[in-house]
């Protein structure tokens, strides 16, 4: 594991530009998917509105950098911060909803923000904003930030799982009602996860859009984001720490290798998703774990 992490962290030193790009995307997808996994896989919150934080994160770096000349790292942090604020506000509404209604509620929030931003003169309506960072970042520098986020998100979920919160989350994942009668404060823990996921997702979005140089409401707040996250997490193995790693690798691999045949790569992705659900409903890592009984990042207590 350590070797792989080290290899990943040093890609700019030995890899081609193409590889740097590949692993940059991998790290960011991994980060955001790991957060969706924290929600859907452990807290039972199936959010279809994670794109809301991706949009907020993207616009935060644009507005903070362009308008106020804020340092780039602080702008990224600001993206996380605003996402948490928004998540708190959203929770007033959506935490009353259950199951499907929660999922739809989060999505509607994202749609509202999409329309809001495309009608808001401050962010130049639907045309979107170019992003100028202060100071300007090289490709490698952006890669390192993404790397820190990617590794950080895995470590974060790992440490959450080793903590009191994680113990409760794992119990909730297996049976929410029973865990509540065992003293687990289900509502509060769900809220914590929602806020943590918003924070990290918001920051990852900032890095992604710095790389894209351009943020635009119809892309940033698009459901396509969440569709990708669902694929990554469920194909990889929902409720496992390793699942999103494998899933993100598959997604980035498909989209990069078949970059010239964009729609073909997505067709294949759709087919893989259906095949995985039919053949290995727990996802690739979930099924491997169940069959072979190994875990690399085990949150197990002994």
């Amino acid at each position, binding site marked *: 594991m350590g070797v792989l992490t080290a290899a990943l962290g040093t890609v700019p030193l030995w890899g081609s530009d193409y590889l740097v790009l590949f692993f940059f995307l991998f790290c960011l997808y991994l980060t955001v998917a790991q957060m969706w996994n924290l929600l859907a896989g452990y807290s039972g919150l199936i959010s279809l509105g994670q794109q809301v934080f991706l949009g907020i994160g993207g616009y935060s770096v644009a507005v903070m950098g362009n308008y106020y000349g804020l340092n780039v790292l602080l702008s990224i942090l600001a993206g996380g911060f605003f996402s948490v604020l928004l998540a708190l506000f959203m929770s007033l509404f959506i935490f009353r909803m259950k199951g499907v209604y929660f999922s739809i509620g989060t999505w509607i929030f994202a749609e509202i923000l999409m329309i809001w931003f495309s009608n808001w003169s401050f962010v130049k309506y639907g045309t979107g904003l170019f992003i100028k960072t202060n100071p300007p970042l090289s490709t490698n520098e952006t890669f390192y930030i993404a790397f820190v986020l990617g590794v950080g998100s895995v470590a974060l979920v790992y440490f959450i799982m080793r903590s009191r919160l994680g*113990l409760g989350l794992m119990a909730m994942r*297996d*049976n929410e009602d029973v865990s509540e009668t*065992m*003293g687990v404060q289900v509502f509060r823990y769900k809220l914590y996860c929602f806020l943590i996921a918003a924070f990290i997702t918001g920051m990852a979005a900032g890095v992604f859009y710095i790389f894209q140089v351009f943020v635009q409401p119809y892309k940033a707040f698009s459901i396509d984001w969440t569709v990708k996250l669902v694929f990554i997490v469920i194909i990889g193995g929902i409720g496992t720490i390793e699942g999103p790693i494998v899933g993100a690798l598959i997604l980035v691999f498909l989209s990069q290798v078949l970059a010239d045949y964009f729609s073909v790569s997505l067709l294949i992705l759709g087919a893989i998703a259906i095949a995985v659900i039919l053949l290995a409903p727990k996802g690739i890592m979930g099924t491997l774990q169940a069959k072979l009984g190994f875990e690399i990042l085990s949150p197990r*207590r002994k």
Partner: protein
Amino acid sequence: MPDILVVKSLEKYFGHLLVVSQLSFEVRQGEILGVLGPNGAGKTTMFNLITGTLKADGGSIIFNGVDITRESPARRCRQGIGRTYQIPRPFENMTVYENLLVGAVHGAGMREKHAAPFAMEVLELIRLLPEKDKLAGGLCLLDRKRLELGRALATQPRLLLIDEVAGGLTENEVEMLLKVVKEIQHRGVSIVWIEHILMMLSEGVDRLLVLDGGRRLQCGDPRHVMNSQDVMECYLGSEED
């Protein structure tokens, strides 16, 4: 000593159906109260109301002198109400040890450092030490029932609600569990115990509560209750035509 649990005129509707009706009883400190009743008598619903999984539509529940009718299930557990389920519901993807840890950390509010030796102690009591690192989903029925008891115990309850431990087990296995329950009682835990095998209840319990149609039919000395006419009737059907 005051009663550990006092239930007053408890009521619960499912839609328009009254499933628990004006139910009142108390559990004395340190006793085992057996609960009996035919299908649909409202026994498990009563447990769900006491633990807070269901919200009562009327009446009150006083635990240890505090009105807990509006508290969340988690809070009730922290205050000392533990329960087992009729069909064991362990956290299947967690190990036996982790299952107990959940109880100790979240239910009893211990730090994980202190919870670990306590969980080991409980493992020994329920005789599951050898299975400690097995996934709970892979346990056999007897071990699941043991875990069910152990997990509830790990929350350090002052009142333990037991929903049928004997179902589906052989006689020897039942006797083994009976011993565990007795040990739990000796630790000063009060127990409310739903069971279908009457032998267990008439031997093991201090008092017996009989429910029918969500109402209290009888409550008192087990032998006396078992021989009463209306209890027999509610099981055997009425004689008159």
